């Protein structure tokens, strides 16, 4: 199991390098000029100096290398320093935002918890709703529950988050007034009342994202359960007198989870895309919102780092799914 995990970890390195290269080249090949906003009265030699000050004077590979070093070597050191009070990163050049001239990662550290909190919660909520639905509709195939479940998941598939978001705001925030329409990230939870407030403001963004997840995962769960329910080992388990709930919830479920875990892992990029839209709709100041702001302000280092941060999150979650895969299916571990 340990070697399996380590092998997966090593495989993640070229993936991350490839993604960083794609992002870097995409920004590099873009025809936009970061100096386009500078007034025309500024003489060209001053402009040249400004370009160099932004770090644009160096050739391509040097800049790529520096960015990779900054991201993978200096920023972790800063994180280490903040945690243990050491001074490894002192005086080293960090990734600076062109907008604020402050390190990008400091802003990411401020905003990442909001994104992870909303995205993570919604993914977990979505999966927790989806699994029982999938299991039950497979167990009672073509029942009323199954038919309506299929219909609802179809709708969940089809309604994009930028429609469900405003729709929920319209119904629950404007008409009924149950939940606030804007997510207040400065809210501190310290007692029961403030916890209730936090819960109420989280319900809508989480539900918007969870709807998509639920729709996808419950369909996968249903299909995979259906494949397994007709297998011989299920008949054996029943024949030897195991109670029905153990047959379904232990024997069949564990085997059916394997493709579902893949589906969960493959859904992660989509959920981060949905998170950007949800953050815009509910005005959550997470990293998706920060990415949009940086994009519109032509703040290339921030864009580069934020896009890559999202990629890192995706790769990390995929890694977790891979390891889970190994836990569920011993054959994969020894492959």
């Amino acid at each position, binding site marked *: 199991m340990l070697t399996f995990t380590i092998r997966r970890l090593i495989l993640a390195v070229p993936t991350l390098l490839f993604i960083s290269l*794609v992002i870097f080249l995409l920004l590099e090949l873009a025809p*936009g000029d970061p100096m386009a906003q500078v007034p025309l009265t500024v003489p060209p030699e001053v402009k040249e100096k400004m370009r160099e000050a932004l770090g644009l004077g160096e050739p391509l590979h040097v800049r790529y290398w520096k960015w990779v070093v900054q991201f993978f070597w200096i920023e972790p050191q800063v994180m280490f320093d903040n945690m243990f009070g050491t001074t490894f990163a002192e005086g080293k050049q960090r990734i600076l935002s062109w907008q604020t001239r402050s390190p990008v990662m400091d802003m990411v550290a401020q905003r990442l918890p909001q994104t992870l909190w909303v995205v993570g919660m919604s993914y977990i909520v979505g999966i927790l709703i989806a699994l029982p639905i999938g299991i039950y509709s497979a167990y009672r195939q073509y029942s009323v529950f199954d038919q309506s479940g299929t219909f609802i998941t*179809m709708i969940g598939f089809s309604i*994009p988050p*930028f429609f469900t978001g405003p729709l929920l705001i*319209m119904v629950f925030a*404007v008409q009924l007034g149950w939940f606030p329409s804007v997510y207040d990230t400065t809210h501190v939870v310290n007692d029961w009342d403030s916890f209730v407030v936090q819960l109420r403001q989280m319900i809508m963004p989480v539900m918007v994202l969870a709807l998509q997840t639920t729709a996808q995962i419950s369909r996968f769960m249903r299909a995979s359960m259906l494949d397994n329910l007709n297998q011989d080992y299920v008949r054996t388990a029943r024949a030897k007198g195991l109670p029905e709930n153990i047959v379904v919830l232990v024997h069949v479920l564990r085997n059916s989870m394997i493709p579902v875990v893949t589906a969960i892992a493959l859904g992660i990029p989509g959920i981060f895309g949905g998170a950007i839209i949800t953050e815009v709709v509910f005005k959550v100041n997470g990293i998706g919102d920060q990415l*949009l702001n940086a*994009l519109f302000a032509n703040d290339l280092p921030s864009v580069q780092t934020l896009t890559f941060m*999202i990629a890192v999150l995706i790769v990390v979650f995929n890694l977790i799914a891979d390891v889970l895969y190994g836990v569920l299916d011993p054959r994969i571990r020894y492959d």
Partner: protein
Amino acid sequence: MTEQDQKIEALQDAVPTDPPHSQWKDVWDQFRKHKGALMGGSFLLLITLAVLIGEYVWTIDPQKLDIRNKDVRPIYTAIWNGDAKVQWAHPLGTDNLGRDALANLIVGGRTSMAVGWVAMILALSIGTTIGVLAGYFRRLDGPLMRFTDLVLSLPILPLLLVAVTLFREQLRATFGPETGMFILIVGVVGVTSWMQTARIVRSEILALKEREFIVAARSIGTTPGAIIRRHLLPNVISPIMVSATLGLAIAIITESALSFLGVGFPPDFPTWGKMLADAVPRMDQFPERVMLPGLAISLTVLSVNYLGDGLRDALDPRIRGR
């Protein structure tokens, strides 16, 4: 009469009683049984026709400003609110500049559908090419599939946002604001959504490649190109069609999402996503401006998804005929 006897009797017939029917007739028979798919297919046809010829039926210019008749509510509002400002001239109302909502929905729908279809075809051709190459040529399999996995773990929406924002000016200058944006959005959506098709096509090709008819074709000296064109592609048409419906749905949603986030087409060029985004700030007063384009997107995607579901059942010989 037992089943055994029936079989023997059928064998004694000089000619089969039923005329032989083609594979596509079987597919159509199975497809017809799926009510959702039939409804989805007809709705998709209807909405495609509506956005294609709607302009000639509903001849109001979608860009025409009519400031006296601004903020007209849809005609159905009169049912529960007698004082609402409604007009038969604008059955779905007008926006805050007096532009007709129905005309905008028609024109916006045409953009959304066009982007969806072209991006889907682009994604399908890339996906099929990569899938066929990886499945047929063993040497290419490893690198191409590794590449597909890498692309699958890319953060698609952030990259789309970055690409559209950064390349917008250049393409606008070269091809004009609308065509440039169309090329850009179709390009980026197509280039980032081919991976599922490639995987499915590859696995089908891998299974087909070992079948006797391919071995036979190879043994009489058919070139790989001809084998792929004549024998393999016709046999993978069904998974390709199913992923085409998925791709169409994804492309329509992605285009709308980009428009919603404000990086889509120019402001005077309506699409469903942008109409929705523009309406969000005043949705407490004019909920229909969010509902109508939102419903249009959702219903189109829903019908495409149902169509795909029915196609999958109809094209799968293991399910067909059950």
